[in-house]
């Protein structure tokens, strides 16, 4: 339960982040952002880094630590 709750919530974050990145990709292709309009890309990048950082914590917790 502990394992599936942690990885399940992380999966939801990843799916949401992937959707945001896809949206960003489509909008960037349409030249929607530039050096003056960069709030959305910066927010999405920050969110993705958060998801990434979470995995850096979850991975050692679940896979690298020896069970007591």
């Amino acid at each position, binding site marked *: 339960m502990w394992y599936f709750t942690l990885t399940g919530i992380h999966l939801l974050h990843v799916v949401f982040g992937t959707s945001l990145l896809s949206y960003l*990709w489509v909008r960037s*292709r349409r030249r929607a952002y530039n050096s003056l309009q960069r709030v959305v890309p910066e927010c999405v990048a920050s969110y993705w880094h958060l998801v990434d950082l979470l995995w850096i914590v979850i*991975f050692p917790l679940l896979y*690298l630590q020896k069970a007591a």
Partner: protein
Amino acid sequence: MSVLRERVTMVWLGLVVLTCVTTWGLSKDLFIPAVGVIGIFSIAAIKVSYVMLDFMELRYAPIPVRSAFQAWPVIVAAMILGFWFATPSLT
């Protein structure tokens, strides 16, 4: 057995080397963009594969599970490279 001789240590060292190749080699305008992009995403897929095999015990999983999880990095890398090559350059 010394920890230095264990398989996971060797795999870990390999992953570090691959990271160096991506960060200080392929990302530094040493190659044309297509080579850099193919190299970076192929290396990322190989690294994901080895992390799953040796750090997430996929090596000892049943064959169908192993096939499904090994297919994942291949599909994702192919999709990203597909997007990159299928769309015209904006510059």
